């Protein structure tokens, strides 16, 4: 990796180092075991049967034909579905949704389960599923945001965002000497991790073993346990590797629960893996939005008001309303702030959190609106943002725990060459006559901490075992968390055996919200600290130890030895301390935490600034992002190489959001007609050129013990707006709908 980091941060010998992904070789050689790689003996294969209409009832399934097919062992339909102990509509854990598990014969979205077919082979079950040949009584499908009445959202926690109001909004509007009132639309997007949702389920009495990709192992255990009426500790989940999650694998989904139910019913292990096409519906998506933004400025270009109303599509039977409008609340120092959310119920699967939920869609609209406001003010978009820089959190006035956004702006602009940007659009052409434009966007993402526990065991040979049920979904937890754990024990990485990805380990929390490294890492840090503390006590009390009597002095751990702080001549090795004490091992425990008074006192966010260059063919209107620079301040960076990958991945998703991703419904059936990777486009290599990430140094003493803010999602935020603004700068056209297509520019 080119060392693009402004200041590599080190706090021990491991963290801060660009350690190469430790699971990389296993993955590229195919030895890493993903869920569907498991095939226990006596396995049955389940095939999911999705509804092919979006609204109505299933009137007939040819179960007899399916059952008659050789190798088909069971056809599960609403007619014979064994009982579940839990209520599918209940939400047993955080982040839960109502699950669709063949409750009745009604169809609420295309892709909803209408049956599950089991077979001795995947082929037999697949053919059985085809032979079901469903007939329907279909009703007209509502799949577009205007297809039904919008209603205000009743605030109610997760999925039902409350609006926010700070200051006198009416006065803010009235005080504006210039104002804009613009509406932006974003399309429905589907997570589509490379690894589709899968499960391998095995029952032994009332004990359930699952291979299942999960972003939250212990929480998922509790969820599955609820549906099957067993204690959570009876459920074991193995998930050493996830082929991506992006928010769609946090909780049990209907298809997975059905497969587990089939395993229970048949008494045999059952494997289910959704096809790519089946990913479009039952496992969440980013709901479409329409957002209205009214901004006003005074004569000094200071924002008098940001008034952001979001309308989001959700399902007809559950709530997840994209909290898009709230993305504009923590960023700019406006005199007054308001956000409000409305929702429209459509015949689609329930949306859910998808990488940067709320922030991605909301920032896309906000950053474009900021650009439009800067244009109206006649000032440079960066200058406009600096004039409205929030020194304290807008609305609440809380101080930031740390905020190096100004440095992000400056370093990013410098690297990009922003100062040469003409103010007016359509001023730049490259040597081939392509219209060239530069745009920017600001990125903001909160720093949540979840609960997590970890255990560290120092062994008699001086090596250690550290354990937590953390999740590597490709982001690099196997590596970054091991680095933290090794540092917490003062050991080199190869002296630490790191175990994760199994529910029998201490609860590593949720890999989500960009908070996993901070949370699971915090727990590991505390567990290692606990071991060192105990070790110090033993050594100080041991007359044979060079550390004897140094009880009140602080110790530090380095390379497997304890040192008296400031006196390198007094040290003792871990192994010797344990040997003399006659201990085979020493166990420490730790939990993640954030000081409650700091959580109360400070606003805690990662920040960033994204600069984009696009080229647009003046006649053909084809767009290409040719350069992007993202500068991010996200607290301590544990592994610069992995952090850069996360941030680059986010920026690439920004390209995807701005120019490619869109699920298209057939208005007649309500089906998504581009439900595969030939039709549902994400950028290919040729679309991704010249991306660069800078991480800006930031010390945050308050956010958590390690000063980590998280880099998982912020890369998308700001990037979408930067690209759209660059397109305006190149062409002079504001396209207020994502993705931006050739026809939009051609007809602008």
């Amino acid at each position, binding site marked *: 990796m080119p060392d693009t980091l402004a200041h590599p941060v080190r706090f021990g010998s491991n963290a801060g180092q660009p350690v190469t992904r430790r699971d990389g070789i296993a993955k590229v050689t195919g030895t890493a075991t993903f869920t569907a790689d498991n095939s226990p003996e006596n396995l049955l294969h389940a095939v999911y049967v999705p509804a092919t209409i979006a609204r109505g009832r299933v009137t007939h399934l040819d179960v007899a034909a399916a059952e008659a097919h050789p190798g088909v062992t069971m056809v599960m339909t609403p007619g014979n579905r064994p009982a579940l102990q839990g209520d599918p509509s209940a939400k047993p854990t955080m982040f839960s949704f109502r699950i669709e598990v063949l409750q009745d014969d009604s169809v609420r979205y295309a892709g909803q389960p209408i049956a599950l077919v089991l077979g001795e082979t995947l082929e037999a079950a697949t053919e059985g599923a085809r032979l079901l040949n469903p007939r329907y009584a279909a009703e007209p499908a509502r799949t577009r945001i205007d297809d039904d009445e919008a209603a205000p959202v009743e605030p109610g926690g997760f999925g039902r965002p409350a609006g926010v109001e700070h200051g006198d909004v009416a006065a803010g509007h009235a005080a504006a000497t210039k104002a804009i009132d613009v509406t932006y639309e974003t399309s429905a997007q589907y997570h589509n991790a490379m690894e589709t949702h899968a499960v391998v389920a095995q029952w032994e009495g009332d004990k359930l073993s699952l291979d299942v990709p999960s972003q939250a192992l212990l929480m998922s255990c509790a969820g599955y346990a609820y549906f099957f009426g067993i204690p959570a500790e009876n459920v074991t989940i193995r998930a050493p590797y996830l082929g991506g999650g992006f928010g769609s694998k946090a909780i049990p989904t209907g298809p997975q629960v059905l497969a587990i139910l089939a395993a229970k019913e048949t008494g045999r292990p059952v494997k289910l893996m959704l096809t790519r096409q089946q990913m479009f519906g039952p496992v969440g998506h980013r709901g479409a939005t329409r957002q209205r933004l009214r901004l006003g400025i005074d004569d000094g270009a200071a924002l008098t008001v940001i008034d952001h109303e979001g309308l989001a599509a959700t399902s007809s039977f559950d709530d997840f309303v994209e909290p898009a409008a709230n993305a504009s609340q923590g960023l700019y120092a406006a005199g007054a702030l308001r956000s409000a959310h409305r929702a429209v119920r459509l015949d689609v699967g329930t949306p859910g959190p998808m990488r940067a939920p709320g922030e991605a869609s909301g920032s896309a609209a906000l950053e474009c609106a900021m650009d439009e406001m800067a244009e109206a003010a006649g000032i440079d978009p960066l200058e406009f943002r600096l004039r409205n820089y929030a020194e304290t959190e807008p609305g609440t006035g809380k101080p930031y725990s740390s905020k190096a956004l100004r440095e992000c702006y400056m370093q990013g602009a410098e690297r990009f060459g922003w100062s040469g940007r003409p103010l007016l659009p359509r001023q730049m052409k490259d040597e081939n006559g392509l219209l060239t434009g530069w745009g920017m966007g600001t990125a903001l993402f909160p720093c949540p901490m979840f609960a997590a526990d970890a255990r560290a065991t120092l062994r008699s040979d001086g090596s250690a075992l550290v354990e937590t049920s953390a999740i590597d979904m490709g982001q690099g937890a196997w590596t970054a968390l091991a680095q933290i754990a090794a540092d917490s024990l003062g050991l080199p990485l190869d002296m630490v055996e790191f175990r994760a990805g199994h529910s029998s380990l201490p609860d590593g929390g949720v890999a989500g919200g960009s908070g996993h490294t901070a949370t699971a890492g915090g727990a590991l840090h505390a567990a290692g600290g606990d071991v060192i503390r105990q070790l110090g006590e033993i050594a100080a009390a041991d007359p044979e130890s060079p550390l004897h009597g140094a009880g009140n002095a602080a110790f530090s751990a380095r390379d497997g030895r304890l040192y008296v702080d400031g006196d390198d001549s007094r040290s003792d090795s871990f192994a010797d301390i344990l040997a003399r004490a006659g201990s085979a091992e020493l166990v420490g425990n730790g939990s993640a935490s954030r000081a409650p008074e700091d959580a109360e006192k400070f606003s805690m966010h990662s920040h960033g600034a994204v600069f984009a260059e696009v080229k647009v*063919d003046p006649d053909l209107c084809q767009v290409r992002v040719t350069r992007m620079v993202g500068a991010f301040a996200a607290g301590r960076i544990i592994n610069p190489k992995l952090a850069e990958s996360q941030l680059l991945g986010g920026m690439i998703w920004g390209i995807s959001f701005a*120019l490619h991703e869109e699920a298209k419904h057939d208005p*007649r059936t309500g*089906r998504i007609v581009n439900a595969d990777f030939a*039709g549902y486009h994400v950028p290919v*290599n040729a679309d991704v050129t010249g991306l660069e990430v800078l991480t800006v140094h930031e010390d945050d003493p308050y956010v958590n013990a390690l000063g980590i803010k998280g880099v998982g999602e912020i890369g998308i935020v700001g990037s979408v707006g930067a690209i759209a603004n660059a397109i305006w700068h190149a062409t002079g056209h504001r396209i207020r709908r994502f993705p931006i297509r050739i026809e939009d520019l051609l007809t602008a």
Partner: protein
Amino acid sequence: MKPFDFVQPRTVDEALAAWEPGAAWLGGGTNLVDLMKTGAVQPAKLIDITRLPGLDTIETRADGATRIGALVSNADLADDPGFARSFPMVAEALLSGASGQLRNVATVAGNIMQSPRDAFYRELDPPSDPLSGGASLAVLGTGGRFAAVNPSDFAVPLVALDAVVEVRGPGGAREIALADLHLPPGDAPGNSTALRPGELILALRLPAAAAGFAAHSRYLKVRDRTSFAFATASAAASLRIEGGRIAEARLALGAVAPRPWRVAEAEALLAGRAIDADLFAEAAEVALSGAVAVGGNGWKIELARRTAARALAMAAAGTPARMPALPASPFAPQAGDLIHA
């Protein structure tokens, strides 16, 4: 997928004998198997023709024509140096299609016979309320009906160069001009060709004269994604330039009609004229003069017009010495490395 019989004949005669109503020839399978999985086509029998001998060569015949065996892969044809030199826009079109993996497997006969794989076609019944944008709906050659465009890039330059399809079937051997291979749409959308039941394509042939355009020959493909996407509009343009004037022109458009769309009127207009941008705009105007917007896709007509004019200008500027880094893309106007996107 509906169950089907599967046979692997070892000779062309065996293959022809294996044919029965409801059977389909299986080339690389990259189109056919996809459509079988979705249920859009449901053959009762697959006749795998990839083991047939002698159909995988590119040869120059005594009369100067180039004959491409039906089983030559898209990748092998594009990468054949002699072929790319003589027919650069055909190579460029091939390299702009699908992905490297697909081109390795896809056969040339399968390519020209491919059915639209887009949503509209797979939904089987034509929409009363067309899908948003109408990007894949034909604006030419439909008689005002809804029809999906022919998706092949390769067929566009081929039709401009008077390619001929050699077939054999129960009734013996015959030749079909590629321009006549794809029939106008009937009531149902989809793939209807002039092949008679049981006829197998053995080769594609380019006449000797086709190589006369090599110096001024380009394929241009416009789409939202830079690579690995079907065309929203495309054009193959070839000029034979003598003494600064266009002696002869060839122009065909892709992604606008249910077949590769050759525009003889535009070619006639260009012949004998001096190179100039207004002339290309005029030719493009003529090329799209009969176009009818469907499902709100009037923009596509304008895009096709601009694509045609640009392709002509690119051809006039001359075939690049090396394949552009992004073949057929407006973003690789300079000759680049032989990096296939």
